């Protein structure tokens, strides 16, 4: 194989390698299933409980996606507002930093008081946790317009709106799409946290239920499902970023 070929194959080889070592370790040290199930045990659990895993995965996917979409809309709007006006920036920034430093798991009980156990707290937790990086990135894109570009346009009589539309918003798009990768991962964390604490569906809930029945392979099957979902969502966002802001990557390449 060529060097290129090895690099292409590397992620798969490493992943397979991990599972092989894992299987071998469990076998060799005779580790009990309820401490660390072997990959083959986990696989058996996935096959056996597939309908449940599938249904709960869809639920988690749904709450994550909805929370994420809300975060995109809210984050974009707030980011533009903050980038637009120094007054909005000055007023909101301390609030946002304060809010962002609260661990979101601490908000879940309040959401449950308001909305009860179920889908809504999961969606809202995903939203709350995912929205901050979008705001910060969009605002950064707007705040870092080259002063010379701004001077050129203002000397032409451009209004603030013109500068935003022609320069600010296009140039903040790579920051925005870049932040989506982070945001979707965080939204996922948010909805799983909420499902684990306060839900009757979703992978988080399924894992908690499996744990209380000492069905350890199913707990691990839940983890695998989460990893697969996470990778798929991340890859989709990375692809979207490449598609939408190709110019930013090409212009960086010499």
């Amino acid at each position, binding site marked *: 194989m060529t060097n290129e070929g090895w690099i292409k194959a590397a992620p798969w080889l490493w992943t397979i390698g991990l599972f092989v070592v894992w299987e071998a370790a469990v076998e060799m040290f005779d580790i009990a299933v309820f401490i660390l199930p072997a990959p083959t045990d986990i696989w058996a659990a996935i096959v056996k409980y597939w309908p449940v895993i599938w249904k709960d995965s869809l639920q988690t996917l749904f709450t994550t996606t909805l929370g994420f979409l809300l975060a995109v809309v809210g984050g974009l709007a707030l980011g533009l507002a903050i980038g637009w006006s120094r007054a909005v920036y000055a007023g909101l920034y301390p609030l946002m930093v304060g809010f962002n430093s609260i661990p979101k798991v601490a908000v879940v009980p309040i959401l449950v008081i308001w909305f009860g156990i179920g889908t809504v707290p999961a969606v809202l937790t995903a939203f709350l946790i995912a929205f901050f990086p979008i705001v910060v990135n969009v605002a950064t894109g707007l705040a870092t317009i*080259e002063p*010379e*570009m701004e*001077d*050129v*346009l*203002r*000397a*032409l*009589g*451009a209004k603030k709106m*013109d500068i935003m539309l*022609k*320069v600010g918003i*296009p*140039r903040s798009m790579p920051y925005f799409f870049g932040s989506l990768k982070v945001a979707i991962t965080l939204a996922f964390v948010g909805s799983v946290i909420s499902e684990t604490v306060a839900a009757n569906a979703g992978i988080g809930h399924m894992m908690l239920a499996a744990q209380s029945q000492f069905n350890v392979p199913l707990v691990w099957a839940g983890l695998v499902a989460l990893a697969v979902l996470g990778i798929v969502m991340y890859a989709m966002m990375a692809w979207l970023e490449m598609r939408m802001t190709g*110019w*930013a990557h*090409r*212009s960086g390449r010499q």
Partner: protein
Amino acid sequence: MTGFVDLNDIRLAYGPGGDGTLALDGLTMAVRRGEFAAVVGPSGCGKSTLMKLATGLIRPQAGTVEVAGKEVDGPVSVAGMAFQNPSMLPWRTTLKNVMLPLEIVQPHRRQLKRDYESYVARAEELLEIVGLKGFGDKFPWELSGGMQQRANLCRALIHDPALLMLDEPFGALDAFTREELWQVMRDLHAEKGFTVILVTHDLREAVFLADRVFVMSARPGRIIVDQEIAFARPRPIDLTYEAQFNDIVHELRGHIAEARAAA
């Protein structure tokens, strides 16, 4: 005063409330309509500041700025500007970059949709004049630095500005490209008759292009020499190798050396 651009006893300090760096103090200059003026002076003496004042991007603490007989109280909107840094937008093709001012300045902004084809033709004509024929659909990052700077000039000219402000636009170019663009500027100025204020560090550039050269003092800047350059137009590039030409360059160089020493 009777200039097209009139700066009268300007004082400008940066910083909150104007109590920071004093950039300009007691600066007076007048540029006539259609004139090609060059501004030279020691580094940091306030040349770029002067450009921002004349286009209304910043306001002086004292003194008056008039452009085309009107007191400037905000961005003037008749100026085309080009800086040392080409600042092209990377998501637009070169042609679209050049056409950007048309999306802002009236009456073009109104007419752009309807007369799109003729505006494109105009942009392409300008690109050809500066030697960028056929590069309109390339992205800025596909152009060399010198080519971007040519496109930058086109962008400053596309809306037929009455006033062209150039802040060291040729500073980063090699000697041959620079001389080539001097000639392009010379011809455009002769053809279109706009007023130009060119800030430069290159005294040969100033003397070759300008009708008048202003020399500034060290910071806080003011005009210490206002010299007419009387060479007949059109000026051939060989002029820059003649004795009279070099005498003027030397004389200006002496003024700047003095201004630096006085600082």
